């Protein structure tokens, strides 16, 4: 499948039209969605019409920039005017968005073509996409496995060629987890950088909006479009020699699948060979991340869902309902402790980055798990799938730092492995420049 960058070149060379690219995506959806269940709603007619309008505009000399005519999908947690935002839940039955989310407004202005809205873990409250009112989305690499979550349908749509890219949300890892599980790139920007206006919240403290794409260049283009910057050009490549990267081993490499560990170590070795200065450091309170995350995100979720838990509990999927009910029991004093923990963690990640350009950690400790599995065996020990999926991504939702997850080869059975590069807060562009430089080394394992 074409990347956004390649499509843009060919579009402007008149080798392909927006209508043709959109039609190709719609044909892939027609062929694969019954298996993958990536889309909740396909907006084929609107997409065809929008693509033809973009082609007419370009022919008339109106070029909106890198996303002009690009067919993309949207996680069904994000409002699009005139369409339901289901959040993959029966609780939302009857909803129709009165206006576009801020990011959709920006994407329309940038000329993107929306092919449909994608499946997710109900209300983004899960990591596997199994608990959805529309049934589970499936991983294109192996449909018996989860595509990750909560933006599972989004990642599957890109990995299966149903869209050139997609927009997801990330509260504990919901962009990076499915990106890693499906073998694509995912970007969680700095907290607060991209507007969440018009996005159904999970935790207003930790929610992020960001792109999932085929490569880092495409993620850069989408990220800038989400900011309202429609004409950004990708940065020039920078040399890897002299870049300083810190590998976090304590906690982050304590529990890893054997093949994930092997791919991660290969990535580190290749970066060293390419001239990167690699240090090893630790984040002191990393092992408390889960407790900090839970005691902030759960009260946020409980507050949002309190009314519907009381009035229509049967409309939630059972697992999501029970976790939301659990969330209502947390004490205010423990929430305050978690806020103190968040501040401590943020300072520690800031300090780690003071002497380094980026931090490097695996994205998922395990490959995409089988659908329905509650536990997996990792290095001879049984582990909870949910805890494994969140373990390495949620630290940076808590700290707020920008993170790119990119492919780093596959397991012996062909399942994708991902690694994360973490950058300084408010310096997402600088992180993306480093990721662009590292991508040929890391992603060609």
């Amino acid at each position, binding site marked *: 499948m074409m990347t956004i960058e390649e499509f843009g070149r060919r579009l402007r060379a008149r080798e392909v039209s927006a209508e043709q690219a959109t039609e190709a995506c719609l044909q892939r959806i027609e062929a694969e969605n019954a298996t993958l269940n990536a889309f909740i709603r396909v907006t084929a007619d609107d997409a065809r019409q929008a693509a033809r309008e973009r082609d007419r505009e370009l022919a008339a000399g109106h070029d909106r920039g890198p996303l002009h005519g690009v067919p993309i999908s949207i996680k069904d947690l994000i409002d699009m005017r005139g369409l339901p935002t289901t959040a993959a839940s029966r609780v939302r039955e009857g909803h129709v968005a009165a206006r576009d989310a801020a990011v959709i407004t920006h994407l329309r202005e940038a000329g993107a073509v929306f092919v449909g809205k994608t499946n997710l873990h109900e209300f983004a409250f899960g990591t596997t996409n199994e608990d959805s009112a529309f049934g589970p989305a499936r991983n294109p690499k192996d449909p018996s496995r989860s595509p990750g979550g909560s933006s599972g349908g989004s990642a599957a749509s890109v990995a299966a060629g149903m869209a050139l890219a997609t927009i997801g949300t990330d509260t504990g890892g919901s962009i990076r987890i499915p990106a890693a599980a499906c073998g694509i790139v995912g970007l969680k920007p700095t907290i607060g950088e991209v507007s969440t206006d018009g996005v159904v919240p999970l935790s207003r403290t930790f929610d992020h909006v960001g792109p999932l794409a085929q490569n880092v260049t495409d993620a850069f283009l989408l990220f800038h479009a989400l900011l309202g910057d429609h004409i950004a050009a990708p940065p020039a490549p920078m040399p890897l020699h002299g870049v300083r990267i810190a590998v976090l081993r304590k906690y982050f490499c304590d529990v890893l699948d054997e093949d994930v560990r092997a791919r991660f170590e290969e990535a580190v070795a290749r970066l060293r060979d390419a001239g990167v200065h690699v240090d090893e450091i630790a984040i002191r309170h990393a092992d408390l991340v889960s407790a900090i995350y839970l005691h902030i995100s759960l009260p946020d979720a409980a507050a949002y869902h309190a009314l519907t838990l009381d009035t229509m509990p049967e409309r939630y999927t059972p697992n999501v309902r*029970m*976790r939301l009910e659990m969330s209502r029991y947390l004490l205010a004093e423990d929430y305050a402790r978690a806020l*103190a923990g968040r501040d401590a963690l943020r300072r520690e990640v800031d300090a780690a980055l003071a002497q380094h350009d980026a931090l490097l950690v695996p994205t998922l400790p395990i490959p995409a798990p089988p659908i329905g599995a509650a536990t997996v065996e990792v290095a001879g020990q049984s582990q909870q799938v949910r805890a494994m999926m969140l373990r390495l991504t949620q630290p940076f939702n808590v700290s707020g730092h920008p993170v790119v997850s990119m492919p780093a080869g596959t397991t012996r059975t062909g399942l994708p492995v991902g690694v994360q590069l973490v950058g300084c807060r408010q310096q997402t562009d600088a992180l993306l420049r480093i990721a662009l430089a590292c991508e040929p080394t890391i992603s060609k394992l």
Partner: protein
Amino acid sequence: MTIEAWLKAAIADAETRKLPELKALLEALAKSTTALRQADFNDDARR
């Protein structure tokens, strides 16, 4: 409120609300809360 007292009250409330499935989740949450309360970043009025 101690974690033991909190857990006991929470489980009793869940049972009153006919949500016995919550017991295991609340017990897991109690372990997480214990870890959070033992962290050295917490305030202490004696310090």
